[in-house]
């Protein structure tokens, strides 16, 4: 098994953290994992993205050329990375910010109202959580319990109160992917 994904958006949408949660959960489950961010001045309010690989085997190149799953949190991310998804792949996109929805018929398209869901759980910053739920649903990579365990590890006492609303947003994202 080798799963490769790219998560892209702009600074503040939590795309780097979302990628870390995927990688860290893989580590918990005994997989080989890598997380590679785009870094530098562009991370300040500009574009942000990361490559995540979860694998049973040794991981080669840590930068993902053609992702099994692309998560696009805004229009420029979809425009930049959408074409890299090979046929049979999956594009999960934030339908609240992406006006020109992807039209490819050779990949699975999943629209998630990330901002809408985050607002509905009264945690408007948690726009990265619904996509994680959608990723779980589309890939069956981990269970919700796996993600909960990772968040409990990663979020210190200071942010522990966020876990519940995060999980709620994640579950709503998962359900959106079923529909």
């Amino acid at each position, binding site marked *: 098994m080798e799963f490769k994904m790219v998560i892209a958006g702009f600074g503040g949408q939590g795309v780097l953290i979302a990628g*870390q949660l995927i*990688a*860290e959960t893989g*580590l918990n489950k005994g997989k*080989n*994992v*890598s*997380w*590679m*961010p785009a*870094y*530098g*001045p562009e991370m300040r309010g500009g574009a942000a993205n990361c490559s995540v690989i979860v694998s049973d085997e*040794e*991981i*080669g*190149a*840590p*930068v993902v*050329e053609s992702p099994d799953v692309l998560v696009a949190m805004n229009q420029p991310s979809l425009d930049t990375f959408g074409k890299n998804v090979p046929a049979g792949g999956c594009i999960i996109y934030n339908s609240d910010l992406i006006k020109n929805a992807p039209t490819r018929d050779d990949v699975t398209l999943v629209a998630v109202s990330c901002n809408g869901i985050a607002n509905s759980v009264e945690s408007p910053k948690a726009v990265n959580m619904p996509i994680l739920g959608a990723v779980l649903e589309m890939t069956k990579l981990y269970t919700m319990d796996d993600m909960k365990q990772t968040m409990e590890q990663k979020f210190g006492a200071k942010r522990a109160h966020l876990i519940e609303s995060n999980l709620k947003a994640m579950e709503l994202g998962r359900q959106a992917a079923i529909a």
Partner: protein
Amino acid sequence: MKKLMKGNFAIAEAAIQAGCRGFFGYPITPQNELIEYMSVEMPKQDGGVFIQAESEVAAINMVFGASGAGARVMTSSSGPGLSLKQEGISFLAGAELPALIVNIMRAGPGLGGIQPAQADYFQATKGGGHGDYSLLVYAPASVQEAADLTQKAFDRADYYRMPTMILADAVIGQMMEPCEVKSMDTRSDFDKVWAVTGTKAEPGSKKEKRSIVKSLFLNPDELNDHNKKLQRKYQAVAKNEVMFEADSCEDADIVLVAYGTSARICKSAAKITRELGYKVGVFRPITVSPYPYSQLKEAASGCKEVIVVEMSAGQMLLDVKVAMEGSKPISFVGEMGGIMPSPSQVVEAIKKAGRE
């Protein structure tokens, strides 16, 4: 237990666990996490010193002073900062002082860019500063290896009394991977009787006379002898310290040669092409100075073509040519400016070599 760690953090934590008690640095992307981590963690160590110096020049000379005073110390930087440190590195080599220098490579020349590159290979392995000297240079290809080699580099620096280097492209510095930083026995057996500590001997020290730490020998005969001594040391390093990884080279028709992140790109390409029926091996130097010349020639002795992959115009390529002594055709895949060669580029090169 393994934790998901950024390469820059892993190197810093590994250094602390190796007994490094002095860090002297200056901010530069993409190594900033390293200096930031040290600013928090180093002062927590008994006797630990962290200084954000006024320049890379000052930082390497603080390393010179602190190493001369007998401490296990380091600095880290990237491209332009390493250029500024070269004089100090030459002084460390000349005065036979141990120290670790970390280069998280970005693209050059000049200010260049901040994205990953491997264009400082010549600078690291072929001198960099003035005079006849060599560094022991380790090129990690994963976060775990970066941590492990950092600790080894400190140990070898003290053993040989010479500066050592971690030469990592920015992917290694910036990426996160599972990593377990081991704790080392920090009470090393190295009795640094040569260090400047004051002439009043510390209890238990074998120090007998006053210490003078220097690289200056105005008498040419003395300097010649000093240089010969340094060269004997480098020969011992070349004999004993070479590290490499040869993956499936025995029956390979095509041997890919790469270090650091490029080697991982090669492994991806090898995996893809093996499934297509190509016989592909990957040879990865772990020390790039000393270079595994004879080991490469041996590993590639049965192949039809060697392909070198680098994030540069082809710097290690010259060492591969030296190693192969004209015995095999050698081709090159490289990108510059912060662009990484893609696995598919390497796959194409393998297919092309297979057709010939």
